[in-house]
């Protein structure tokens, strides 16, 4: 009986994808994203050089179409003679991985907190929402450094930091959805026949908040990618022996006067990735909530 009470989410999801694809801009953005993901996954196969191999005779070489360019270094080289294109391809791995993992962690955390807070209410709700206020007022950069100092710097440290600082938006949205769902019949009746709270949250409430969750998560991936780049740019993120776009930009700023390409291409990749994700997220939101956002 309980199965039929909650609206099913599965059919709606494929409909959502189709609706997103009907938006031509979003379809283009998805294509760009797909190419980025492919490049990241196939990095060892498609990167023309080892991203860390130094060619000291070819330092600060401009892109290939430039008069002094070298055809084997398509986008030029950095101050140590490392191939920029190969480093960008490997950098995509870090960006996409950190972005997706941070959004997943923050989303899971936020969904649980939002469900519990909204459904159970009471003092727990008040404590959790106050915690959200503190989290928002806290500069996440300090949290980043403290965690880096505590567990050592690394890729997963950055994921943890961005995951633990990003949950508030999810929790607030899920909580407000749950507050309005809580008095709906399929919930009150499930309660009346003695279904446990945990089961109600998982089986009846969670499927109904998946659409807003997916939207926030998509937009959060872009935010997390930019945040990781910012941390790496400040030297507080992923350790320097791992290639990141933020780290490349930080190198590039030192050579702006002589080698513009080091700071331009990784930034372009960063912007293009974040732009495609944001376009996809906006389209997703238009589809999920046409009343509020289709303008």
């Amino acid at each position, binding site marked *: 009986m309980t199965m039929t009470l909650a609206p099913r989410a599965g059919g709606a999801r494929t409909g959502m994808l189709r609706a997103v694809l009907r938006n031509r801009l979003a379809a283009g953005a998805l294509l760009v994203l797909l190419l980025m993901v492919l490049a990241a996954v196939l990095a060892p196969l498609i990167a023309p050089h080892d991203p860390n191999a130094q060619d000291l005779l070819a330092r600060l070489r401009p892109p290939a179409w430039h008069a002094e360019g070298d055809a084997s270094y398509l986008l030029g080289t950095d101050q140590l003679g490392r191939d920029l294109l190969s480093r960008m391809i490997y950098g995509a791995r870090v960006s996409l991985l950190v972005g997706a993992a941070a959004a997943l962690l923050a989303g899971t955390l936020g969904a649980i907190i939002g469900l519990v807070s909204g459904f159970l209410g009471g003092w727990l709700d008040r404590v959790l929402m*106050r915690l959200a206020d503190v989290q928002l007022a806290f500069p996440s950069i300090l949290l980043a450094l403290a965690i880096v100092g505590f567990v050592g710097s690394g890729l997963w440290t950055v994921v943890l930091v961005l995951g633990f600082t990003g949950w508030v938006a999810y929790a607030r949205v899920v909580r407000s959805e749950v507050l309005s769902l809580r008095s709906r019949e399929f919930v009150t009746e499930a309660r009346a026949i003695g279904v446990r709270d945990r089961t109600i949250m998982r089986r009846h409430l969670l499927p109904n908040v998946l659409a807003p969750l997916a939207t926030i998560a998509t937009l959060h991936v872009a935010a997390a990618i930019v945040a990781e780049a910012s941390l790496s*740019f400040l030297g507080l993120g992923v350790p320097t022996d791992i290639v990141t776009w933020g780290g490349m930009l930080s190198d590039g700023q030192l050579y702006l006067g002589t080698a513009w390409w080091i700071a331009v291409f990784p930034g372009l990749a960063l912007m293009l990735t974040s732009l495609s994700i944001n376009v996809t997220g906006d389209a997703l939101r238009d589809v999920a909530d046409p009343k509020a956002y289709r303008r």
Partner: protein
Amino acid sequence: MAELTVRDREGSPGKSAEPRTGAGAGLLRGIATKLGTALIVLFCVATVSFFLVRLSGDPVKLLLPPEATVEQEATLRASLGLDRPLLVQYLDYLAGLPKLDFGTSLFYDQPVAEVLFGRLPATLLLAGAAMVVCLLIAIPAGIIAALRRGRATDSGVMAGVLIGQSTPPFWVGILLILVFAVQFQVLPASGYGTFAHLILPAITLAVYSVAVIARLLRSSLIDVLGSDYIRTARAKGLGPRGVIVGHGLRNASLPVVTVIGLELGSLLGGAILTEQVFSWPGIGRLTVEAITNRDFPLVQASVLFFAAAFVVVNLLVDVSYTLLDPRVRLRS
């Protein structure tokens, strides 16, 4: 006539059900509650930052050369007061807060408040200039996009908004340096002091907020322009400018004011990266330095500063919202 229509916006009737007589007292009580919450939040931030910063490592090791002896380390630790039990240090720190006494910077060997407030003008100048740049671009862009909804101008503005929201601010700064300082050499790439030094950092910091505010103003104006009282105003022969200025903007301004307030908070946070790119001598750069130097008292104080700025701005937004729109009551 205008006064009659201004409050015509659709709102939930429940919000204004409160009796008029109790409104003043309710407002005060609401503000008091918000203030109490703000203090609790600040206390939590102070506590968490105190313990978090101590997880990041030992500042004594950074202050002394690597060949220093254990005795020298112990002497320095004692003179900095870092050998006392953690709880004593914590209570000492809390006791100083109400007097704005944040202790002595380990790195600068000066009172933290002095170091911090010495850098404050630079950050306030940067954030203020960025806000001016932001409003000068975002308000016209939002209005034009709303009026030309669906046409090329609108698409152009919206494309700009999307790009602005997706571009990492520090990269915008790098590009601006590349074009205006390296290529054309018309503006300085870094430094502080003259108006020319302010231009590139202010634009860099403003980009993201321009996108947020222009987008919101557009959608909130589109909302308002579709309402009945705007049709009435048009029907009685008011020109497009009168409609926008007299009716549209006034009613579309509420959500925008909120977001402008919140953006002011995020401008201060964004200053950390912008100051780094342009070597701007503000609090943002001071904080990053303090973090890498493990200057505990300075980190604690600057974290508290950013949190306080955020909390105060939120409080002001809440209050101004109530004053601007009598239908909204502060909920206690």
